């Protein structure tokens, strides 16, 4: 895939490409989400292993509601980051971040690289705050957000259901820019 805006080097010396997500990434995105282990897919906010959900995501990007960044190794997407911002209204200065790194590429600094790019995007968009939310069981994701400077703002008890229908608490996190 062409059109990388950055080519960062991971801790294992591997060089990846970063590009903004577009319609052309549909199939590779679907493959990325479907390649995640089942136990991780259970906890995803949306069932992004379904074509219509990935279509919804791409649609949100095309409508300007979100900006996506994918990390590419060869032809394969190995990391996905999304910054949601409502273009109008009272939430227009607050962005929501979502970040996912394939298990094969964890511990190599890719999460931090993607998060940094989201921060740069957020600053360029003149945002005042970033928010994110994780299930209470997603301990690793919460730890990563905390390392990036997010703090816990609240817990919504029993508010979310995983793919198996089990209830979980939702942790709200935020960070002022």
């Amino acid at each position, binding site marked *: 895939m062409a059109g990388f805006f950055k080519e960062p080097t991971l801790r294992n010396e591997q060089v990846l490409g970063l590009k903004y997500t577009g319609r052309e990434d549909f199939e590779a995105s679907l493959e990325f989400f479907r390649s995640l282990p089942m136990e991780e897919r259970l906890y995803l906010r*949306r069932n992004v292993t379904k074509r219509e959900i990935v279509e919804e995501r791409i649609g949100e990007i095309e409508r300007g509601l979100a900006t996506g960044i994918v990390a590419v190794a060869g032809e394969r997407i190995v990391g996905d980051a999304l910054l949601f911002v*409502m273009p*109008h209204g*009272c939430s227009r200065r607050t962005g929501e971040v979502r970040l996912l790194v394939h298990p094969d590429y964890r511990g190599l600094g890719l999460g931090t690289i993607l998060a940094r790019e989201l921060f740069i995007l957020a600053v360029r968009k003149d945002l005042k705050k970033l*928010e994110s939310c994780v299930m209470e069981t997603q301990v690793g994701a919460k730890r990563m957000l905390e390392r990036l400077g997010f703090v816990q*703002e609240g817990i919504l008890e029993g508010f*979310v259901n995983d793919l198996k229908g089990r209830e979980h608490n939702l942790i709200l996190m935020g960070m002022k820019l």
Partner: protein
Amino acid sequence: MYEYSETVSLKDGSQVTVRDTTIDDLDKSFDFFQAMSDEERQYLRIDVCNKEIVRDRYHQIELGKAIRLIAECHGQLVGEATLETMRYGWLRKSGEVRLLILPALCDLGLERLMAREIFLLGARLGLNNLIARVMDMQQKTYAILSDLHFKHAATQKDHACDADGKMHDVHLLTFSLKEMWRKMEDAIGEADTSPLDTYY
């Protein structure tokens, strides 16, 4: 589509019809938003001065992502209550309550009435949880939701931006419908073993 239409009286005796909405209400809806002051519009998440965006709200209803009740008085739209739901994903058993009422009618009880109706709608849909987001200046809305036993669950500090660019906290109020049903079932269960059962 939830089929609903009821005419109610407000505190001053004026009659308001509360019903579900269709794309045929687009012009009324647009007029409703144009009649709002800039201060009132600052609580909204979308650009309601753009008719295509207002039209898209009806598309969200068709997609099953929202159910909306409107209040009409003398043929004009004076308020709406929306329950936003997700068909998929981890929030599929939760709904977000959104209320938009012309301020003059809030004092006549319309906001409380609409809040109650959308709450009952959430209950009928079998949702587990309801959530409402209230900016720190929306004390009346906060009070109405508290009266409906919504509880303060979290505060997202400096989440919302007003028309002047000033940041405000947003309070998240939640209601557990699942917990409500469980308590009711427990109460009914206790009633089933009351002394009356042994009368016969």
